[in-house]
């Protein structure tokens, strides 16, 4: 319990309730440390200590959303005075619905690891472990980051809701370099794990050294293995498109679908899992005070639900899914159940195709149609007759999310908790095998 933040949130809620019909105050206090590694050495150690205050204010259906980073409530109250002055100049928000009635506070428990605070004072031990562990695979150099956070979150509303919770976050990723070849791995959790640090370094190193061959590549349709890093990146886009706000603004492939539609192979399910306290996106209540729960966005290939807050739910005639976001609902943690393939047999079973271990720069030509491309980075490997024959360099997946999900041939049993620069919603993901996916590379 964070008394300072709670007292502040209560105080602001009480004061603003005199001017507005509804007030919600979300206070987030973060203490964080990140060590960045460059060529086997720390390039910088960064620390943050900050209090963020977010306000949702409503009056006669008009909606204001304010964000302040300040320890001084008087600054904030002065700004809200300015906001109320223009109340008669603006019209009702399309995304206003009353805040939920009073509910019992049910924070998550077990999401805080005291070791995270300990290692904020002694991060060099973790850095050394990552660097030494990665270099032990025979690579030349390693870059990456280790980030540790303590996050306290408090919500008070004028409907009498009050709740607070605390969690820790641990993020580590590494990129290993061996001559012209690189490998990458990442991990995210609420708990520090020394074995995870070693595993990140080991996998990055393995992908950097898996072969020294470089082979020619001809663009075309291929069967592909996507690593959990690639799966994490691409399905984060799918999950964001499942936000009801994305649908309301047309920036979603789900604009074309309704719950119950079959949109993927039966082997694919995608869950929003805020109650999984091992993943760092966990939380017990959303920004409107709705208790969170795990839910399928896609279950056995069938589109199940959009992600809602009370406003989007009200507009679409359904109930909140506990994913507020005051304007836009959003996913918290993502989880794709594994399949029956064994990770160590994926390459052999693929027979012929391409193994893409990492990607970045996913962009869409058309969200409504789900048309996208993304670029591989680190190891992209040509597979022939069940064997790796060599690196094909930086290639591109150019496809649609619909095709990607309908062409899934299998998922690995083993899953990994990934979180890094290109996967900002923590995800537990397997390797996924997809057939007939267009891969491109410039011919000039």
């Amino acid at each position: 319990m964070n008394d300072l933040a709670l007292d502040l949130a209560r105080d602001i809620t009480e004061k603003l309730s005199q001017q507005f019909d509804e007030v919600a105050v979300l206070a987030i206090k973060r203490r964080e440390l990140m060590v960045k590694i460059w060529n086997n050495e720390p390039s910088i150690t960064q620390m943050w200590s900050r209090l963020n205050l977010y306000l949702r204010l409503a009056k006669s259906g008009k909606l204001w959303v304010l964000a302040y980073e300040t320890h001084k409530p008087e600054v904030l109250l002065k700004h809200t005075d300015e906001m109320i002055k223009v109340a008669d100049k603006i019209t009702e928000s399309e995304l206003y619905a009353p805040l939920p009635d009073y509910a019992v506070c049910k924070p998550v428990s077990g999401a805080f690891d005291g070791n995270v605070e300990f290692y904020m004072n002694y991060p060099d031990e973790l850095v050394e472990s990552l660097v030494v562990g990665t270099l032990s695979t025979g690579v030349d150099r390693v870059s990456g980051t280790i980030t540790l956070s303590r996050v306290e979150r408090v919500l008070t509303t004028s409907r009498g809701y009050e709740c607070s919770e605390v969690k820790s976050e641990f993020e580590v990723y590494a990129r290993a370099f061996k001559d012209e070849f690189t490998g990458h791995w990442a991990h995210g959790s609420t708990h520090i794990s020394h074995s995870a640090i070693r595993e990140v370094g080991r996998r990055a190193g393995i992908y950097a050294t898996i072969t020294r061959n470089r082979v020619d590549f001809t663009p075309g349709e291929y069967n592909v293995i996507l690593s959990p890093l690639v799966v994490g990146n691409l399905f984060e886009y799918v999950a964001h498109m499942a936000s009801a706000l994305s649908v309301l603004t047309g920036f979603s492939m789900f604009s074309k679908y309704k719950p119950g539609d079959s949109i993927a192979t039966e082997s694919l399910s995608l869950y929003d899992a805020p109650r999984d306290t091992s993943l760092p996106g966990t939380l017990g209540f959303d920004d409107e005070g709705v208790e969170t729960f795990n839910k399928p966005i896609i279950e056995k290939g069938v589109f199940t639900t959009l992600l809602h807050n009370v406003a989007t739910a009200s507009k679409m005639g359904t109930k909140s899914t506990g994913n507020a976001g005051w304007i836009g609902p959003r996913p918290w943690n993502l989880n794709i159940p594994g399949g029956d393939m064994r990770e160590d047999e994926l390459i052999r079973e693929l027979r012929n195709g391409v193994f893409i271990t990492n990607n970045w720069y996913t962009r869409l030509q058309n969200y409504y149609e789900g048309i996208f491309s993304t670029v591989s980075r680190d190891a992209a490997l040509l597979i022939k007759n069940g064997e790796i024959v060599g690196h094909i360099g930086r290639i591109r997946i150019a496809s649609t999310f619909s095709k990607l999900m309908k062409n899934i041939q299998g998922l690995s049993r083993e899953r990994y908790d990934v979180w890094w620069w290109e996967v900002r919603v923590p995800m537990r993901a397997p390797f996924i095998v997809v057939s007939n996916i267009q891969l491109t590379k410039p011919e000039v």
Partner: protein
Amino acid sequence: MELQVDPTLLYRVVDRGRELNAQYVEVRFQSDYRVSVTTRNDRILAVSSSKSSGIGIRVLVNGALGFAATNSTSSSDLLELVERAVSQASATSRLRKKPIEFSDENLSSIKYSVDEKKRLEDFNVEEMIKLAMDIYSTARSAVREVKLPFLVTDIRVHIQEKLVVTSDGAYVESRIPRLHISVLSTLLHPQKGTLQRSREFGGSGGGELIERWDPARAISEEQVALERVLVSGIMPPREKVTVVLGPEVVGLIVHESAGHPMEADRILGREASQAGESYVKPEYIGSYKIGNKYATVVDDPTLPNSYGFYLYDDEGVKARPRYLYKEGLINEPLHNRHTARIFNVKSNGASRSMNYASEPIVRMGNTYLVPGEMSFEELIEDVDLGVYVKSYMEWNIDDIRWNQRYVGLEAYIIRNGELAEPVRNPVLEFTTGWFYSNILGVDRNLEFHPGICGKGEPSQGVPVWFGGPNVKLSKMQIGVLA
């Protein structure tokens, strides 16, 4: 300009850092205040406001860098924070074999601000809503054969104030107001499907920028053009044809394939694990030809009214135009004081931070391909068959800034030297080397477009402009969407 923080507080932190044996201490107060209105079609979604202000402290201790930030401005909190920053940097210094050093610079004591003919703080919510409604109603009434089911407008005022002081004498106080408008639209035709566009306007200055941009007119004209593309657009030619790219596409290309690979920290590998490295190696500087005589790319943060405007960077170094590529030669990378020291040169003032909580790192300001003399008509008059790509939606580039892709949105056939029927979704994929070596001509129509450029750990988004003229390229095979 009324300073929101007492400079003596920042100097006390500098002094405390020096007492603790930091070789260098930099203390930056930064305030970012934003007000925005977001609408969907003719309805308001929300009125939003945010205020982020606090202090970032960077120290160099025993050859190791430490950074700490807080939004508390209490003297005791800040003194404790600088002690922690020094302590952490000192602890990790044992893991460094080669000490980090900064270049020596002539640092200034200066105050500057951007002029506003109409103060942005007076550009009120009511006016923003009216503008957003105008944009929607004008666009909706402009199209005939398609529907406009979704048009989302976001109008945002951003006032950024900074005070940077360093232990070696810099004092830079600045105020930069910025205005940004984004419009996301979806055109829907029952048989032809959908087409989506993200259009942005951005710059520094006051409310007068609105008159200059005339966004309602610009958006409605573009919707009419996009309607033609959706309704009548044909597939791109199957044979290799001349490609002409518009300023928006050219600007993005030079941002991605000249600006980013010429960031010295990327060349050195400091961003290797996330933003990536560069095809440019340190030994290429001043010796390697990446393109032909038309390949001159400049990054200039000092352009008046630009979105990436600043006169002094966040290390107190005066900004100036940087010729990244000069007539095809890889010429001058973007530097901060750290990378400048490694390259044994002076910093060229490229150190920027997103907010008070962000480490200053090497960034672009406003990047553009230098224009030529001819008109657009002269540029395309000798093209028998080609494709003109005016705008894009999808794009990406690999992590060394070599292999890139742009998918056109508004595009036309060029036939016998004139623009002809619209083309749908032309796909361009090429390498950086091919692009800069295959420019056949550039016209004089220099235009800039705004963007938020992402880089750093944690990721920092900073406002930039990217631009260029219309550019004619050699014949190439144009792809189609799978």
